[in-house]
């Protein structure tokens, strides 16, 4: 099998796809306001016509590159290219202003690459054994996993719990549109055949995340600013920095992998958590000089790239996405006839290991391509925004159309774009809604089939060993969160982050 994986990985077509999607991901990520998620969603119409492996490779590569590239405008212009870079924008920008731009960006680059490699390693080691356990899962365990995932997604979304729950229940309600998974009775479809299959994931994603971002950019056009120049070597100082901050980078990579594996918690949350840990929990990270800034930048950049790999753990093992980008990958896999889940490890192990291998290639390729991107950032910034946003909108439209081949799905992106804009303006997080939409049908179906098996006896949800553990954990998480809400909050003395 090793040779078949190796020969797949060295396939010229695959490497070309990786190279092209890397360039694409770097450019999209480096443009302020265009996110890694947007880069992945807009790739869908292209990858749908590829073989399954290159299709998945394109999204993995583009998202990893875009997450790093978001650091560049963050450092140079103080405008993070992706939300995942926001945690350390001030630190990186401060170093640029002190003439240490090459060091700051190099630190972020090398830490991103290492963070990605750590998560790829954890993914390759942990996923196969987890998949063995997952083979004995029944609908009870999947039900609890789904509920647990949604709960995490809501609780970590930040801000008000009630608003997180609004987003979650909105997503779950949207998921009930279309045919009921057990009886096949159409629900809320308004007699329209377009709604019988429910809301498609890709149009909703493009609407909520890409179109709403375009709306925000259109309403608040970013000002053009003078670009500070980056001079000096990047690679050598960053390798020295890597040695100096090895512990912080490793810690960031581990935190990122773990946070990424939680459903719903994506790269931005991973970066913020790792940043806070570095700031409060380490001697170096507390310092206000360049060493402190490098420690925080490296911890957080390792974490945001690691979270991408972490998210593939639940995605490949259980078929449950860890974030919106893996949700896209899972739907692309389904369209291409690969069904993610434990049986994939049994039936097509070479597919899974090739996908893991792509992680290693993409994160290694990040170093040379990232350096090129830092050097060429001036050119990317000079891309005229008037043309870029018009073309991105065109690709949003075509992306929605090419997956479902209906104009109805194109109309949906306008609707969900406005909805996403209004939700974000009112501090309602978007991620729980997307996970609700994705996991809703699975939760309903596993609940219904379990009920059919047990003839309506609810105790079956705590009868099986693993199921009972997952159930108790879920109930405990909810109890903990509700208690925290009711208990009078102690005023935590905490330094403001950032």
């Amino acid at each position, binding site marked *: 099998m090793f040779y078949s994986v190796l020969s797949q990985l060295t396939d010229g077509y695959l490497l070309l796809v990786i190279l092209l999607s890397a360039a694409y991901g770097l450019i999209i990520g480096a443009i302020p306001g265009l996110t890694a998620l947007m880069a992945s969603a807009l790739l869908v*119409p292209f990858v749908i016509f590829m073989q399954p492996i290159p299709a998945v490779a394109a999204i993995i590569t583009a998202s990893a590159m875009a997450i790093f590239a978001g650091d560049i405008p963050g450092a140079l212009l103080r405008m993070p290219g992706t939300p995942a870079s926001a945690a350390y924008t001030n630190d990186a920008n401060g170093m640029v202003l002190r003439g240490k731009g090459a060091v700051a960006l190099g630190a972020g680059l090398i830490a991103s690459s290492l963070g990605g490699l750590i998560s790829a390693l954890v993914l390759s080691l942990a996923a196969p054994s987890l998949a063995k356990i997952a083979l004995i899962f029944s609908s009870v365990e999947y039900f609890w996993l789904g509920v647990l995932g949604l709960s995490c997604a809501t609780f970590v979304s930040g801000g008000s719990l009630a*608003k997180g729950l609004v987003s979650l229940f909105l997503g779950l309600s949207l998921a009930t549109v279309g045919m009921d998974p057990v009886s096949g009775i159409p629900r809320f479809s308004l007699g329209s055949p377009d709604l019988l299959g429910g809301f498609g994931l890709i149009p909703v994603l493009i609407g909520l995340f890409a179109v709403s971002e375009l709306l925000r950019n259109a309403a608040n056009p970013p000002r053009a600013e003078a670009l500070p120049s980056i001079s000096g070597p990047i690679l050598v100082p960053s390798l020295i920095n890597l040695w100096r901050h090895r512990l912080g980078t490793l810690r960031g990579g581990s935190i990122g992998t773990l946070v990424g594996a939680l459903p719903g918690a994506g790269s931005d949350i991973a970066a913020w958590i790792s940043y806070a840990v570095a700031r409060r929990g380490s001697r170096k990270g507390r310092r206000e000089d360049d060493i402190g800034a490098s420690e925080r930048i490296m911890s957080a950049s390792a974490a945001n790239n690691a979270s991408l790999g972490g998210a593939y753990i639940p995605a490949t093992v259980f078929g449950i996405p860890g974030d919106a980008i893996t949700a896209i990958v899972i739907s692309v896999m389904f369209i291409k006839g690969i069904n993610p889940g434990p049986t994939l490890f049994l039936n097509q192990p070479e597919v899974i290991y090739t996908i893991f291998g792509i992680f290693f290639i993409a994160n290694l390729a990040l170093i040379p391509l990232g350096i090129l991107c830092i050097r060429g950032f001036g050119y990317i910034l000079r891309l005229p925004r008037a043309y870029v946003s018009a073309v991105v*909108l065109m690709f949003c439209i075509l992306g929605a159309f090419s997956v479902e081949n209906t104009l109805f799905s194109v109309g949906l992106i306008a609707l969900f774009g406005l909805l996403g804009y209004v939700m974000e303006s009112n501090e309602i997080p978007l991620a729980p809604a997307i996970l609700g939409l994705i996991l809703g049908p699975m939760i309903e179906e596993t609940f219904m089939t379990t009920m059919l098996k047990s003839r309506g006896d609810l105790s079956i949800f705590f009868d099986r060993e693993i199921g009972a553990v997952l159930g108790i954990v879920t109930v405990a998480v909810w109890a903990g969160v509700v208690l925290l809400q009711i208990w009078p909050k102690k005023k935590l003395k905490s330094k403001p982050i950032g």
Partner: protein
Amino acid sequence: MRVHDIILGPAVVLAGAGLCVWATALPQPQGFAYGPNLFPTLTGSGLALAGLSILFAGIKKRRMGPLFERPDWSKRWRLAINFWLIPVAIIAYVLLVEPLGFLITATLLLFALMIANRVHPRRAAVVALIIALAINLLFASILHVPLPWGPLTAVSGWLIW
């Protein structure tokens, strides 16, 4: 567009309650303990409860902030046009692409978007046409997405290989 929690809460409660009521109209299959209305009722109730909690939080801080905050962009007509042009362009695409075909629709929309972003009209027209042609070639010939051709159907053979 920001609204105070005192308005947002009841709006969410209404949506949740509406969903619950709508769910009662769903047909109930024979012999099932739980029907297709179970989940919509649960999610509707969840929405309503979350809405209530937002309402209570809003009552506590009712003096903070205006009930309805107009976004800054709506006060400047150019930004307002930029904003609304995006949903309008998407709807226009849905309505026009069948009768006009992709090439003409895309050129018109790209042109409009660029003009709104202060690109010189002549330049915008040329760039819009080139981009639309390139996208059309890419999607029709390489990715095989069935884009409509409209009145250009007769000459579509020149552009697909």
